[in-house]
């Protein structure tokens, strides 16, 4: 009976999800994200299969661990994972919680990401190397996929619970920042702990982690050690069941909990309009746990990112923790108007308040991130003992702070991403709407843009030393002033349009208008343009700008994944230039494709498309 009900529920939920997916395909924005994401995913899955084909099990174990990590961490950055079917939709149905969560789990399997992971997991069959092992590989890979998915859902649920209390939000931010920094700088920690056999240690760890149990089963089958096969598979089953139970329990909590703001500690006591706007914005940072979470995350990320290399005694990155935190902060908070949603009507209906509102948001940003990053920069640069770093960081920091404070409001106004209004949100604090793709895109673009604002001051500081500092301060003030002005003017001129966007999202008609010219292009050109815009940053920044900075600052210890630094002598510069040219060409190609498509759109102007 229970099984029949679970089956029927799952079937219906899968149909619902597929229907929503089909409608999603009608939407140009979502379609381009799905296509781009699918393309990248397939490339990664193909890479995994290729690795498996080479027969190096150790590397495969590590790669599978990375896949699982992606499932767990991914949703934390992309708005709480796929929530096409929110548990809240089904609270009034007379279904036992476990039936519902089983149904939601099955429905979650009907998506692009699980299919791609399934392809990647076929690597277990590839490495099996015998009929018996191949037969073991089939259940192993299915169980492994189930565990990936469950781990992902469970992580989101746990995270959701954490975010409901202040301490939890801070812990979640710290963990999150550590994980993300680890993916970039974790090599240092690992090198520190296992200075001899890095790959071996990695592989051992990856086999102990649940992501490696499927591989362990297949390997054991190849050796004919059936007891170990059974143990590994049973381990996966038990893990899946435990995670499912935990997840259902958290779902019940989520759909029956209440959502009120905490009690208020200090009443607003401003005296002027500008002061009131600032006070309101600061209260978003102190009272909204998601804001606070982001602030802690950005600062912690900067710290972890630059402090992890300490594990191998490398101090040269320490001075950059402050600047890194500012860049992360700017990119995480570039949707201020989107986050406030339709509450924007109060600003729109109050004559002359847009300037006060924009400047208040800038002040709040500077107040939250200015003193903290300055303090970090001063302390860590002093600690690093690197006297040459002083003019560099003190030039870059004010430029970045001003640049971020300017770009954050400009981006919030020009590229607002509509989210669900706070009072209508579901129990998943990470999920603020259904525009994860767009939000992620803005995070990436802002990482690049904010980082770019320190370029003039930093370049000058590299050649002239302390002259960079006044230039940094000046460029910061200019960026703060100019982008703030642009944002306020835009609010005055196009406020009603922004409100409409926040209220109704992008209507299919507007999207059709927006993308008519683009749609007329052949599909491969659209995909290529999207790909170029999405990934142009990789050759340009980590592979060209960052190694260039390292070389200029005389940092020869860090190679990480900077391709150029693995070359000899002049080849380093050649690789850097080639990478920069590649990145810029990708941006140029993507940008121009969009530009001309919009220029040739039936109803005309680029301005309309940009609006």
């Amino acid at each position: 009976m229970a099984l029949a009900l679970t089956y029927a529920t799952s079937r219906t939920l899968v149909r619902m999800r597929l229907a929503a997916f089909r409608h999603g395909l009608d939407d140009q924005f979502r379609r381009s994200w799905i296509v781009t994401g699918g393309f990248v995913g397939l490339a990664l899955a193909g890479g995994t299969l290729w690795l498996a084909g080479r027969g190096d099990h150790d590397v495969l174990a590590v790669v599978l661990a990375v896949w699982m990590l992606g499932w767990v961490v991914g949703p934390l950055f992309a708005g709480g994972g796929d929530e096409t079917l929110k548990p809240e939709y089904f609270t009034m149905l007379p279904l036992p919680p476990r039936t519902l969560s089983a149904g939601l789990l099955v429905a979650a399997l009907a998506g692009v990401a699980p299919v791609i992971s399934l392809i990647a997991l076929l690597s277990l069959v590839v490495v099996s190397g015998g009929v018996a092992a191949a037969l073991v590989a089939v259940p192993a890979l299915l169980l492994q996929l189930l565990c990936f998915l469950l781990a992902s859902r469970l992580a989101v649920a746990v995270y959701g619970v954490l975010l409901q209390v202040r301490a939890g939000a801070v812990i979640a931010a710290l963990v999150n920042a550590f994980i993300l920094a680890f993916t970039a700088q974790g090599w240092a920690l690992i090198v520190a702990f296992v200075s001899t056999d890095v790959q071996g240690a990695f592989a051992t760890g990856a086999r102990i982690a649940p992501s490696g149990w499927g591989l362990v089963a297949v390997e054991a089958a190849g050796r004919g050690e059936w007891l170990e096969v059974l143990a590994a598979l049973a381990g996966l089953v038990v893990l899946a069941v435990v995670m499912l139970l935990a997840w259902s329990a958290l779902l019940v909590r989520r759909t029956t909990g209440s959502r009120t703001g905490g009690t208020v500690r200090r009443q607003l006591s401003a005296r002027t309009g500008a002061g009131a706007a600032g006070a309101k914005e600061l209260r978003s940072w102190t009272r909204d746990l998601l804001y606070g979470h982001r602030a802690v995350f950005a600062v912690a990320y900067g710290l972890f990112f630059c402090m992890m290399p300490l594990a191998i005694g490398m101090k040269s990155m320490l001075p950059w923790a402050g600047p890194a935190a500012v860049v992360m902060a700017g990119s995480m908070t570039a949707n201020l108007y989107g986050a406030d949603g339709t509450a924007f009507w109060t600003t729109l209906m109050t004559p002359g308040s847009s300037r006060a509102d924009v400047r208040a948001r800038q002040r709040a940003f500077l107040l939250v991130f200015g003193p903290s990053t300055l303090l970090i920069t001063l302390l860590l640069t002093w600690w690093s003992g690197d006297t040459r770093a002083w003019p560099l960081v003190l030039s870059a920091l004010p430029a970045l702070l001003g640049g971020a404070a300017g770009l954050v409001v400009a981006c919030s106004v020009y590229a607002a991403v509509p989210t669900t209004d706070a009072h209508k949100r579901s129990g998943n604090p990470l999920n603020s709407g259904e525009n994860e793709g767009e939000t992620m895109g803005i995070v990436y673009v802002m990482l690049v843009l904010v980082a770019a604002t320190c370029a003039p001051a930093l370049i000058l500081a590299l050649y002239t030393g302390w002259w960079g500092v006044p230039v940094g301060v000046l460029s910061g003030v200019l960026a703060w002033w100019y982008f703030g002005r642009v944002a306020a003017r835009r609010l005055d001129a196009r406020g009603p349009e922004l409100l409409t966007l926040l209220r109704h999202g992008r209507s299919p008609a507007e999207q059709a208008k927006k993308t008519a010219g683009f749609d007329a292009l052949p599909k491969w050109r659209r995909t290529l343009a999207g790909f170029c815009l999405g990934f142009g940053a990789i050759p340009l920044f980590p592979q060209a700008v960052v190694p260039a900075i390292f070389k200029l600052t005389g940092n020869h210890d860090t190679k990480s994944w900077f391709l150029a630094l693995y070359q000899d002598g002049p080849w380093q510069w050649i690789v850097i230039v080639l990478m920069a040219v590649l990145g810029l060409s990708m941006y140029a190609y993507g940008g121009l494709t969009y530009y001309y498509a919009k220029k040739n759109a039936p109803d005309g102007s680029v301005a309309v498309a940009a609006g």
Partner: protein
Amino acid sequence: MEEALELVGLTKVFGEQRAVDDLSLTVPARSFFGVLGPNGAGKTTSLSMAVGLLRPDGGTARIFGVDVWRDPTRAKALVGVLPDGLGMPERLTGREVLTYLGLLRGLPEDEVARRAAELLEVLELDHEDDKQVIGYSTGMRKKLGLAVALLHAPRLLVLDEPFEAVDPVSAATIRTILHRFIAGGGSVVMSSHVMALVEQLCDRVAVVADGKVVAAGTVAEVQAGGSLEDAFVSLVGASTRGAEGLTWLSH
């Protein structure tokens, strides 16, 4: 007679659908004006365009002669708005919302404090001072919205469904406030689909269907001898179904 609100040929097209189609309407000063219409008739869209929240594709709106779309700053000083279903600064308390918006409107600090205290007391929101707006119920949000609309003592109130989800006691309070507002020389435009309420409160009504005004005038004129509800049903051309079929509902 002076006009509090004048809508001239307002048009809004969403995709293929003409949500509001060349809609014109005149609201005389000091009148209590009800806008009636079935769901999806274009009431909210029209009122949004009338006050400057949604840019029309055609036509314009004037508040006491000031063009909302040419001179929004002056027009917005004259009107107080209660939109339906829009957010608020969720992380502030009710008192803080009023303080914040009052100061932004340029009112002096002590005046803002006085007005906020009075509005909160009258609307019975003064016991909720430690509560952020995100924790408010739908009815409380409506009442706070009304307080926001009244705060700067506008000459015209435009209220979208002001009585929805409001309990009977609060509804009576709101009615009293609105009557006082009219008696003091103000004008009110209110949308609703509660006929009895409109019949009881308003002196003039307009019926909107499919984005057009199908009838407008004094309540007596629109009623044409019958009840407002009968007039409404015959005007919007809806058949009252629900008696036939649905046999499976019987136990």
